[in-house]
Structures are given as C-alpha cells and as structure tokens.
C-alpha cells in the first residue's frame, strides 16, 4: 500500500486535531465538527484505519452491520430521533442500496450521509468489482442524488464538511466517494506472473 502511505504520511506521525495528516483523520474530524456520532459500517480494507480510530474515540458510536441497507435504516431512524449518523461502505455495498435510497432516504427527506470506499477502478484486480463500480454513478445520477468523488487530500475537508452541511440543511442524501487517488486503493500484493 505504498501509494496510501505516501498520501497519509509516515506511520506514527502525531496528528493534531487542527492539522490532520491523512484522509481518514480529515473524515473523522469533519464527522466531529458536524456532530455526527453514529457510524455503522460494513468494513472495507481501505477503511480499516478510519474504523479503528472511530472505535477508539468515545465521541462515536460505531459498529458493524450485516448489510449496508441495515445501516441506512439505523442512521435514518437515529436522525429522526435527533442523533446524526453516517454510513461507511465499499462500492459493492453501495450497489445494494438503490431500493432503500428510493423508498426511504429520498422520499422521506432524510439526510443520509454515505462514505463509499471506491473499488473497481485504477488498478482493480477483481472483474466483478470493476463491473459493479460502473453502476454506482449512474444509480446516483438516476436518482438525482448529490455525490462527489474525493481525489485530493487538500480538497477533502472542503468537500466533506460542505457536503455534510448541505445534506443536513437541505434534508437530502449525499454520497462521498473516496477515490484510490486519495486513499491508495487496494492492489494485489504481488504482480501476477507474465
């Protein structure tokens, strides 16, 4: 994961709250800034550091769910009860959400905030992942949903903070796609033999 390390800085570097040094620090700080405390997820390799940091921080209630739409149901109920949440998932998990977005988040005007770790592009090794990735943006566009793809660390705070605030104030869902350009993505450890 050399690209990831290059983006996120050396291991063990001290990240001050005001000077985040990695994409996952920025995401965590923006969740805090916007008082988003409930973070259910279906895990992804790329999200590992973010998930473990969320677990380590008592500000957050974070836990795995069996399916992504279950997590969407939970944060929807929580928001109606006055507790803000966001869902973490991988591209293939997003592909299971068309029905719940169309029948719950959008028509009930619920500010569903989703972080999608993007697989299927820029070095994907699993054909199925590359195919399902192609359905993500067409689904978002067909529902006229707000979505942004974060590719650069220097833009991440702006994208995440503004998007969360827009979702909440307009009561509309948003998908924030974390590109391999930002995270390093997932690659095969060894190159396949020629």
């Amino acid at each position, binding site marked *: 994961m050399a690209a990831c390390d290059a983006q996120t800085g050396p291991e063990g570097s001290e990240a001050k709250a005001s000077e985040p040094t990695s994409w996952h620090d920025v995401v965590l700080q923006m969740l805090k800034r916007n008082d988003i405390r*409930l973070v259910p997820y279906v895990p992804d390799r790329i999200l590992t550091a973010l998930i473990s940091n969320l677990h380590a921080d008592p500000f957050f209630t974070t836990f795995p769910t069996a399916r992504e739409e279950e997590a969407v149901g939970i944060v929807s109920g929580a928001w109606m009860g006055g507790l803000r949440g966001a869902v973490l998932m991988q591209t293939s998990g997003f592909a299971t959400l068309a029905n*719940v977005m169309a029948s719950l988040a959008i028509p009930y005007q619920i500010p569903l905030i989703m972080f999608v770790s993007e697989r299927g592009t820029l070095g994907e090794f699993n054909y199925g992942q590359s195919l399902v990735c192609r359905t993500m943006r067409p689904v978002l566009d067909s529902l006229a949903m707000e979505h942004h793809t974060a590719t650069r660390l220097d833009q991440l705070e702006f994208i995440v903070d503004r998007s969360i605030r827009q979702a909440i104030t307009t009561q509309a869902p948003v998908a924030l796609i974390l590109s391999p350009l930002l995270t390093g993505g997932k690659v095969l450890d060894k190159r396949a033999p020629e």
Partner: protein
Amino acid sequence: MNTPANSSARNTRIMNRFDLTSRLIAKLKNEEAVIGGIGNTNFDLWAAGHRPQNFYMLGSMGLAFPIALGVALAQPNRRVFALEGDGSLLMQLGCLSTIASLAPKNLCMVVMDNGIYQITGAQPTPAATVADIVAIAIASGLADSAWAADEEDFERLVDRSLAAPGPTLIGARIDDKPGTGQTRRDPVQIRERFMLGLGVRQAL
C-alpha cells in the same frame, strides 16, 4: 391460513394482526415510539389510531427493526416498538445480531408471523414450513424472545417489554387477513410528524 406453520407442535393460538396491534397501542402511556413495517403491519398500526410517535414505512422491506434501533439509540429514555412481518424480517435476519450485539435497553420487536406474503397474493414464505422465527432470534443473541401463546400472553409479554432491561422480541402467529386500513402515503408528512412526536422538532 398458514397451515404449514400452524401444524407445528407449538401450542400457539392463531391471532389477528389488527387486534394485537390495538392491544399493544392501548398499553402505551408514555409516548413510546412505534415503527410499522411495510404493508399490513403499518396499515394496521394506522387503523389502530394515529399517534404522533408512529412511523409508517412505505418501502424498504425488512428495515422496521433497523429504523427502530436507530430511534432507540437516539432516544435511550424512550421505549421503541417495531412491528414487522415474517416475510419482511426474512429479508434482513442479520439485523437481529446487530441488535443483540448493541443490546439497547428500550427496544421491543414484534413479529407478525402468518407464513405468507399476504399482500402479494398469500404465497408461502420460504420459511413457512421449516423455520422458527423466535428460535432464529434467540440463536441470533436475542435471549428474551418468545412466542405469544394467545392474546393474553401477548399482552403479558408487552407489559414485560415495557420494563425489560434489554431488547425483547415477541412472535405472534396471525391469520391471513389483510390490513384493516390504508396509511396515507405522504412520506414527508409522516417523517415530520414523527419528529414532532419525538420532540426533535417544533412545528413551524
């Protein structure tokens, strides 16, 4: 009637969804939240008399318990009930483990089990002749799960749930009758009124 499920050895009476829902609602004196699953469960919740703390789903089959879990986590001092059909729950069995793992002290799940997809033409569910929803719930970690033997037992289990120290699940075998009413399908108003009822919002 759901003959296969009824022919099991269990000594449980076949009850009626609207009757049970009305009995549940009559016991709620502290602005408890109630989430009605898609179709008949929320139709009967609506027909039992609208309350400001009722939420009616119009789609998203299987998400009544996850939505109720979210409400329960957001408002730990309010009891939350969720009404779900057996077919709906089969769509999302994993949520039982999630709920068991989080163990909210204020969540009661009710499964209305007729073994059929009543609303689509009464086709039997794949579980109808082979599975036991309450046994599945217990095996998922929800130890306080029980079948209601009859209406009185259902009321007793609701009373217990109102004071239980952890999540509870009540299974009720019901008949094949359709829902009694028809919820007004206005999702924005349903959501806004629910939030008003939970004290999250003030009316304009």
